[in-house]
C-alpha cells in the first residue's frame, strides 16, 4: 500500500511539472536585462554582452512577486523558456567600448548561429535557499534546468538572486552567475591564427545575467 502511495505521489509530482500550474503567475521578459559572457585566452580575457533576454517564467504562489513577501521553504513549481538571441550579443573591450565585428562573427559562427539562433534555458526546479532579509535584499534560490547552446542541451544548476521591484509594473529582477565549459556543448574553442602563433581560447566561460520579468501589462478597459 505504501509503495502504491509513493508511486502515485511521484506521478502527481511529475504531472505537476508538465501540466499548467495551479494559481500560477506567468511572467514575461521586460527590457532592462543583461547577459554577459566572460572567457579567457592566452593573450587576454574576452567579454561579450547582450541586452536582450526574452521568454517567460510560470511560477506558483510560493514565488515572491512583491518585495518582502513571505516565501515558503522548499520548491517553487516552475516552468518556462528563457532565451538570448545570439546576434544580440557582441564583444566588448574591458572598459565597455565595442571590440570587434570580426570577433562577433567568429562567436556567431562557433555558436552555430545560422541553425541555432538562441541560447535557451528551460528551468525545471527552483528551491528556496535563503529568504529575503528585508524588502530590498534578494531571495536566493537554487535553480536547475536544461541549457541549450549550439544544438546541445545539458543540465545545469546555479544560484539565483530574485529581487521583486514592486511598483505599478511589478517587475522582478533575477540575477545569477554560472560557469560552463564550451566543450560540454561541443563548441570548438575559437583559435584564430596570427603570424606569431596561435591564440588559444580557454574552455571555461562564465555567464552572468540580470533578467527582468514582470506580469503582462493591464489593458485599458
Amino acid at each position, binding site marked *: 500500500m505504501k509503495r502504491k502511495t509513493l508511486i502515485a505521489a511521484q506521478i502527481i509530482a511529475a504531472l505537476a511539472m508538465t501540466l499548467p500550474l495551479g494559481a500560477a503567475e506567468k511572467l514575461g521578459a521586460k527590457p532592462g536585462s543583461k547577459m554577459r559572457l566572460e572567457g579567457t585566452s592566452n593573450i587576454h580575457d574576452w567579454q561579450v554582452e547582450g541586452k536582450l533576454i526574452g521568454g517567460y517564467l510560470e511560477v506558483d504562489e510560493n514565488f515572491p512577486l512583491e518585495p518582502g513577501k513571505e516565501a515558503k521553504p522548499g520548491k517553487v513549481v516552475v516552468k518556462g523558456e528563457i532565451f538570448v538571441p545570439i546576434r*544580440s550579443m557582441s564583444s566588448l573591450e574591458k572598459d565597455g567600448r*565595442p571590440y570587434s565585428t570580426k570577433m562577433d562573427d567568429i562567436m556567431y559562427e562557433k555558436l552555430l548561429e545560422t541553425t541555432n539562433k538562441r541560447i535557451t534555458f528551460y528551468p525545471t526546479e527552483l528551491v528556496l535557499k535563503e529568504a529575503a532579509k528585508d524588502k530590498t535584499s534578494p531571495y536566493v534560490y537554487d535553480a536547475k534546468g536544461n541549457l541549450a547552446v549550439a544544438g546541445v542541451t545539458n543540465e545545469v544548476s546555479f544560484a539565483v538572486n530574485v529581487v521583486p521591484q514592486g511598483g505599478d509594473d511589478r517587475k522582478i529582477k533575477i540575477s545569477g552567475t554560472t560557469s560552463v565549459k564550451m566543450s560540454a556543448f561541443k563548441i570548438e574553442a575559437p583559435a584564430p591564427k*596570427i603570424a606569431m602563433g596561435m591564440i588559444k581560447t580557454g574552455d571555461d566561460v562564465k555567464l552572468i545575467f540580470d533578467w527582468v520579468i514582470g506580469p503582462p501589462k493591464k489593458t485599458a478597459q
Partner: protein
Amino acid sequence: MNENELNSTSYNRRDFIRGGSMATMMALMGGVDLFAQTNAAAPGGAPKPGIKVKVAVIGLGAWGRDILKTLVRLPIAEVVAICDKYAPSVKKASADAPAAEQVEDYKKILENKEIKAVVISTPTHLHKDLVIEALKAGKHVYCEAPMANTVEDARAIAAAAKDAPHLAFQPGLQLRSDPQRHFLVPFIRSGALGPWVMARAQSNKKQAWRTSSPKPEREKELNWRLESEFSLGLVGELGCQQLDQAAWFLNAKPRAVEGSGNICVWKEDGRDVADTVQATIHYSNGVFLTYSATLGNSFDGDYEVFYGRDSAVMLRGSNAWLFKEVDSPLLGWEVYTKKETFYKETGIVLKAGASKSADQGASGIPEEPFTNTPLSYALGNFLRNAFDIATAADDFKSSFGDDDKEALKDHLMKVRRQPAAGYQEGLLATITAIKAAEAVRTGKRVEIPAELFTV
C-alpha cells in the same frame, strides 16, 4: 555614424601614438608602413559568409551602373531587381546582374516584400519622393549624395530617416566608410599637425560631363547635371564628398560660403552650370577650406590637403602622406616609416592596412589589407548595417513584443554599426553643397544658419 562620433573631440596625440606602438615596434624590426591597428573603428570588411541581403538598384545611369557593378561583387549583396524608367538603361545594366528582375516602375520594387534594401541612384532632384516612399515601404535606403538639390527636400529626407530608426538609412558619402579615412581621422584630429591653418580640396578633369543620346528628350534627361534648375554643379554634385570629408576631419560645421564660377571651356552646348568653380567654405572653428574644380583641365586631378602649423596631410584617393615643417616637433614613430618624394618635398606614408604587421593588431584578429574602393566599403557596410538592424529589431520583438516603441527605438540605437554616414552627416553635406552651389551661381557670400543642420 552616430552623433557622438560626429561630435567627438576625444582623439589626442597620445592615444594615436599608443595605438601605433606595435607599428613602431615592427618598424624598428624592419621598417614598415604605419597601419590601422584597432579594428573597433575600422569597417567590417568582408561580411560573414551566409549573410545575404536582397537589394535593388533604382536609377541606372552611369553612376547607378557603377554601383551595380560594385554590389554584385559583394558577398553580402543579392541583387534581385534593377530599375530605371528608361527601358534601354535597364537592359544595358542587366549584363552585370543577369539574374535580377528588370523593372521600369519603382513602385514594383517597393511593393516587393522580398526586397529588403534599395540603392537610389537617380538624379539628385528625384531622390526625395523615392527615399520617403521607400522608407515608408520598410526598405533600408542607400541614397546617393548629395541627398537633394533643395534645403526643403534635404530636410524632408533627413526627417523621414530619423523617423525610421528600425531601418538603415545611408547617404552616399562613401568616404565615411573608407578604412583609410578612419585611420586618418584620429591622427588629423589629434593636434599632431599643430593648430589649424587651412584646408584645400581640388577636382580637376578634362571632360564635357555630357552624355549623348540619339533622342533629344533622353539626352536632356541624361544631362540634368548641366542645368542649374536640377543640378548643384561641380561643387555640389562632385564636391559633396570632399566638402563632407573636410567637415568630418576638421570636426566643424560650415557657417558661410563664398564662391564664383564660369563656363570657360564648354561654351557651345547650352549648359548653364559652370565648368570651372571656386568656393571658400568657412567653418565654425575659424578654419576655411578652398575648393576648386574644373572640367577644362585635368592637371593634378583630385586631392585634399589639411594644413596645420607643424605639418600638412595630403590625400589622393586612398593614399595619404604627412609633410612636416622643419621646425615641427618629432612625433617619434615617423622616423622609421616609409617615405616618398614629391618634387622638393618628402612625404611620410600614412596608410591603413598596408603591412603584415597589421596581423599583430590589438585584437589579435587578422585584418585583410584595405584594398577595396570606398564605394565598396560604403555599400558593404550599408547592407551589413541593414542586416544587423533588422536582426536586432526581430530579436527585440521576439523577446518583448512590439508594444513598447520607445524601448525598441532605444535598443536599435545601440546596435553596433559599421562605419557609415547617417542622415545627420547626409544633411550636413547636402546643405553645404546646396549653399556652396548657390554661392558659385550668384557670386555672393551665403550664410549657413546652424539650425538647418538639425531635424
